[in-house]
């Protein structure tokens, strides 16, 4: 956990590697190139880097049209501006048309902690996962960002991948195998299952360690692909541990917690607790302090899990 890496830089380097392998890969920027980690791609493949200025509706349509000619566009910009703003373009031009376009929402979640709700993205998972045929990917460490970038480049079809901005702890070894749509069992346990995703997966990982020290054997699952979701792994955890806690840097409405609840409500109902941001416009301030405001620090997650275990026989 001492090794940390910049997620945007990591993504940008992976995209250059993917671009070396496949000359159809192009990058599309909405005045967002350097902040999206695209500088190395731009330098390596200048003719395959297309700048559009601050045009977040137009770029989705352009990407769709480019994809019809065999290009594999990676549209990379600030998360709310490539999800909430051009939602209809995403739905119709990428989803309904099933175009092979990858949209990368960077600085997702509370990353833009001081800039406030206009720049924070707490609903991107919720809205994009309503679009049929669009995969939603939320990598949990730098190694996973790199592997996921290669996986979505190889996958034929529209994808939304979100990454944060603060440096992320490394959780996986370089030989880690990423499979789109398959969750990862990170730690065994029989008392409770914690399901984490994305930027706060490392917080959940540390929380599971705290619990272990207190004699609580928590299972930890990483759901890096929120759609299509790995129902089997989730149902198995519900059957074997009976209690599920989800952890995400996203609204409780429509995110990972909702996606897990949708699976369990139909296949194996069990006690659940969701950790994330409830129905409000988030505050602003230093990133880590903001995470603490919404109970997303490791100690807080461990505490919430403990209280949940002790009271999960009745409604909290």
């Amino acid at each position: 956990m001492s090794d940390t890496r910049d997620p945007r830089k990591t993504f940008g380097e992976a995209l250059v590697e993917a671009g070396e392998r496949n000359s159809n890969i192009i990058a599309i920027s909405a005045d967002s190139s350097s902040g999206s980690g695209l500088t190395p791609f731009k330098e390596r493949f200048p003719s395959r880097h297309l700048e559009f200025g601050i045009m977040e509706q137009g770029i989705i349509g352009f990407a769709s049209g480019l994809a019809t000619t065999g290009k594999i566009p990676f549209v990379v910009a600030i998360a709310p501006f490539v999800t909430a703003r051009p939602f209809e373009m995403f739905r119709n031009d990428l989803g309904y048309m099933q175009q092979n376009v990858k949209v990368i929402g960077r600085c997702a979640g509370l990353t833009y902690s001081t800039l406030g709700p206009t720049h924070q993205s707490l609903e991107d998972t919720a809205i994009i996962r309503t679009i049929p045929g669009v995969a939603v990917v939320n990598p949990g460490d730098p190694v996973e960002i790199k592997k996921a970038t290669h996986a979505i480049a190889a996958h034929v079809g529209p994808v939304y991948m979100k990454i944060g901005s603060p440096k992320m702890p490394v959780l996986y070894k370089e030989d880690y195998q990423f499979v789109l749509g398959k969750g990862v069992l990170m730690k065994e346990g029989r008392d409770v299952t914690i399901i984490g995703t994305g930027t706060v997966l490392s917080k959940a990982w540390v929380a599971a360690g705290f619990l272990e020290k207190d004699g609580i054997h928590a299972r930890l699952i990483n759901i890096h692909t929120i759609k299509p979701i790995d129902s089997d792994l989730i149902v198995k955890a519900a059957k074997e541990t009976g209690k599920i806690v989800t952890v995400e840097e996203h609204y409780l409405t429509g995110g990972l917690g909702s996606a897990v609840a949708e699976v369990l409500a139909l296949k194996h109902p069990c006690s659940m607790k969701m950790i994330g941001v409830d129905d409000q416009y988030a505050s602003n301030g230093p990133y880590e302090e903001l995470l603490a405001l919404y109970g997303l620090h490791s100690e807080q997650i461990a505490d919430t899990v403990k209280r949940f275990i002790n009271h999960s026989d009745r409604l909290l």
Partner: protein
Amino acid sequence: MYILSEEEELQLKKVAFKIRKNVVRMIRVGNAGHVGGALSIAEILAGLYFKIMRVDPKNPGWRERDRLVLSAGHKCLALYAVLADRGFFDKALLDTYGSLNSRLPGHPNMHELPGIETNTGALGHGLSIAGGMALGLKMDGIGSKVYVIMGDGELAEGSNWEAAAATSHYKLDNLLLFVDRNTLQISGRTVDVMNYEPLDKRWESFGWSVREINGHDLQQIVENASRVPFEKGKPSVIIANTIKSKGLSFAEDKAEYHYWKVKEEELQIAEKDLAELERRIGQ
């Protein structure tokens, strides 16, 4: 520049007539449909699909084909009619419009029918998608062209002007846009609902090369569409002055026939109008 012979012009008039006839045929079986905008673009589609565009109905995904993006997706009944006539699919399919699970929905679906390039319907999407097509073709050195048809009411969508800037910025002179200026939208005269004038100056100021024509004159359509780009390095736009619901005496130039909910007596008038049209063309 291509000049139609009298014989060629007559042939295209017959195509436009068949489009109108088949639009009415579909609306009859489906009981309702966007008739106004479909009939205002009959000549434009006839000229494009039977004289201008390089397409192969037997190989609709041919990489070097020309592409049409119907940004105003609600005009799709005319597109269905011309594609069927051009041989992309069996004309019998036209009689399924309006039925459950029809492959001819009220806005086109590329997954359902050969020859449909995009899933349009929500307005203001087509020009960006077409721009991406034109850019991708240029990047690969393919000389195909991309044609777009947009309604004039659609111009109020801001996303069009994003696309207008980007197509010009990337010098996409392999793209031709028709603005179907039938001057009407659901709520009335387009310039009263949301003024777009001066339309030619707007496009010019965005870096486009502009022509204005009578959108029902096949000679003007083919002459202009055959000399794209109008200026090297610029996207081209034809402002096509048209009449909404052209060909139906009771509906021409009336906003209320943007979407026609069929009445039996109107259908009878429509049949008479079509018969008269057919007689005049000498079909």
